[in-house]
């Protein structure tokens, strides 16, 4: 071979090495979880009472992967897992925490290679736990649910929520709910003589009043994309009939982003931007900036998810309240982005399936539900007597969840459409697209996705 040709071949191999190794090694990589933090004294105080004890015949490590970005929540789970281990002599629970993207990528790769954890608390729905179920990676829990009484202890529609796509079999068990609504500065509202609105007209008047009095109504972090998308999706839930949102979520034909409700939601959001109701540089603000702007008192409100409860209570120097977004159209059913959160699944490849099921059963029990409640979360568990709220914020969130019906993160089954949605909303907010043009852009991608699902 000539010297020049050998050089070319060598260069070819050297240059392809990083790309090939990253992509293909990523498809076959063993997961490397991050270790969860050790429980602190605060966690010790909120840990649940002893679970039912059984004895394992030999030392066993139960691998549990938990999806959460909240240090407080992770510490709570570490404490609960330690209690489970103490009640099962010879059993050690190794809890590993993952962020949203990391969990979705790593768990899929691990299960696909027949490895991974015994139990995972993972993202629910079509691209996630239902995809694992279709591929045969996780066990069906329908009979286990009935044997262990989960369908009695938790609302049936909460457990069935993520299962509709498969028409019934239960593969994942949720144990708490989240919603997206309006966090507000209670102290500021009291000072200005304002109260949470009951109607959309009251809400618009409240926002205008805040602006007139020199306060920035909303904190938003559009640079990260999804926080701003939550503003849009929350508005869609109060402008659009519930059946349309549900059909969109399950990628069914018949609903379009150019329908009235979606355009109206985009128009409202764009109007807020034009009137200066959002923080000055919201397009460049991250999700963390959004949270800080609110907890620092630099804005009066923020539309965000209730997974922020832990953070907002700890970091605010004022009383934090919460209310559900009022309906724009009073004739539609009142919905919010109220959803069962993530789901517990048991791996088919677990060598300790009985123990794994015991662990999930423990997590679905009243003691853990009480611990979740005490930490400020909203469990799905049906308490015979509702526990006393640990904070006014928790009471506000609980009441909001009782007022509205369930909703959907309607682009979760269409990640690519979701990205295009975010880009279109960012362009709209920057004044480069009208609300109608933004919705048309998203609909174009939506049509393509519908065509792909029908292939």
């Amino acid at each position, binding site marked *: 071979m000539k010297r020049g040709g050998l050089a070319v071949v060598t260069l070819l191999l050297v240059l392809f090495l990083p790309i*090939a190794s990253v992509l293909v090694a990523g498809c076959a990589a063993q997961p490397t979880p991050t270790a969860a933090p050790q429980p602190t004294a605060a966690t010790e105080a909120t840990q649940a009472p002893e679970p039912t004890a059984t004895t394992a015949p030999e030392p066993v490590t139960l691998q549990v992967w938990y999806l959460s970005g909240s240090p407080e929540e992770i510490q709570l789970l570490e404490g609960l897992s330690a209690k489970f281990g103490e009640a099962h002599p010879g059993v050690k629970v190794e809890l590993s925490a993952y962020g949203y993207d990391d969990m979705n990528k790593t768990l899929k790769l691990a299960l*696909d290679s027949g490895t991974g954890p015994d139990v995972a608390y993972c993202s629910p729905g079509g691209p996630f736990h239902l995809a694992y179920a*279709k*591929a045969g990676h996780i066990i069906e829990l329908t009979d286990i649910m009935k044997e262990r009484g989960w369908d009695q202890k938790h609302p049936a529609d909460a457990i069935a929520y993520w299962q509709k796509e498969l028409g019934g079999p239960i593969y994942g068990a949720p144990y708490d709910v989240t919603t997206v609504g309006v966090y507000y500065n209670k102290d500021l509202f009291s000072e200005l003589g304002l109260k949470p609105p009951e109607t959309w007209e009251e809400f618009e008047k409240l926002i205008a009043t805040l602006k007139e009095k020199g306060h920035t109504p909303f904190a938003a972090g*559009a640079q990260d994309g999804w926080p701003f998308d939550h503003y849009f999706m929350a508005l869609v839930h109060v402008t659009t009939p519930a059946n349309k949102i549900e059909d969109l979520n399950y990628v069914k034909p018949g609903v379009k982003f150019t329908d009235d409700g979606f355009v109206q939601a985009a128009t409202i959001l764009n109007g807020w931007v034009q009137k200066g109701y959002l923080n000055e*540089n919201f397009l*460049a603000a991250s999700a963390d*900036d959004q949270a800080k702007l609110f907890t620092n008192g630099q804005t009066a409100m923020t539309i965000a998810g209730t997974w922020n409860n832990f953070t907002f209570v700890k970091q605010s120097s004022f009383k934090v309240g919460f209310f559900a977004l009022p309906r724009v159209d009073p004739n539609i059913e009142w919905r919010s982005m109220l959803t069962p959160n993530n789901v517990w699944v048991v791996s088919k490849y677990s060598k300790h399936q009985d123990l794994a099921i015991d662990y999930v059963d423990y997590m679905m029990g009243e003691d853990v539900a009480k611990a979740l409640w005490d930490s400020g979360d909203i469990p799905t568990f049906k308490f015979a007597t509702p526990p006393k709220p640990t904070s006014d914020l928790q009471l506000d969130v609980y009441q909001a969840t009782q007022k509205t019906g369930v909703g959907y993160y309607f682009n979760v089954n269409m990640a690519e459409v979701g990205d295009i949605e975010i880009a279109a909303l*960012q362009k709209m907010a920057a004044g480069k697209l009208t609300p109608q043009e933004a919705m048309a852009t998203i609909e174009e991608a939506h049509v393509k996705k519908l065509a792909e699902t029908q292939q």
Partner: protein
Amino acid sequence: MSAIVRSEEVRARGPENVSAYLYIAPALALYSVFFLWPLAQLIYLSMVRWDGMAPKVFMGLQNYRELLASDPRFWLSLQHNLQWLVGAVSVPTGIGLFLAVFLARSPLYGRLAFRTIFFLPQVLSSVVVAIIWRWIYSPDFGALNAILRQVGLASLARGWLGEESLALPALFIASSWVLYGFCMVVFLAALQGIDEAYYDAAKVDGANALQQFWYVTLPAIRGPLSTVILLSAIGAFQVFDLVFIITRGGPAWATMVLSVYMYDNAFRYNKLGYGSAVAIVLGVLILLFSIVFLRVRERLEAA
């Protein structure tokens, strides 16, 4: 005659030839397992439709046709990579060269300390760099806008990562901050190999500092300079960490680059086949650029 002699020599070696291949066999085996085989898998993956779970569906070149003929985001990402390339081969290279010449040829005290300081960003993990610069650019809590407001330049404070026209340059500045130290170190090593006699001769001929740089320094470091340019260019095609952590390709695709687009398709959209096709196209682009660059360099050197 020489070819005949050479082939006779080769035949005469006989068993030595075999032993030579045996020596490289283990390394070649490892290379095949960890590179050639994954590469073959990647090429195959680029020709299927696969979500990572369901059975693969062979599509031939359909992914490539869709990518090259009807995917505006691919071309937008490539455009950003090319813009990054133009910047990468000029800005950190230029800054590194200037600092190297300055530190090598000026009578500055504490040159070693300055070399260390300038090189420090190189030793930081790219994730740490991304997190630092994400904070610096934060419009309400970041250092950049805070400093501008403090010195009376509040009118210049911006949403750096939120404006489509500013986001890519902002990321590039973060990248240059890391890279210029590496360029400086390479050039410093090269400058140490230049005989001082050349500069003396140039001074005798009346050359000023700029002329000495142009006629003595640059020709002497041509090799390392072209290597740095090539590596910077390859880095510009492969840029991932900073974009992924700071902007994820936003706002509105304004900072999307091919490596992040490949990641999104493969791991977020569950289109591993399509993502693999992006990877192959990216690799081919890097290869073509490198071949052309090396050929041009060879011709310039021959001339």
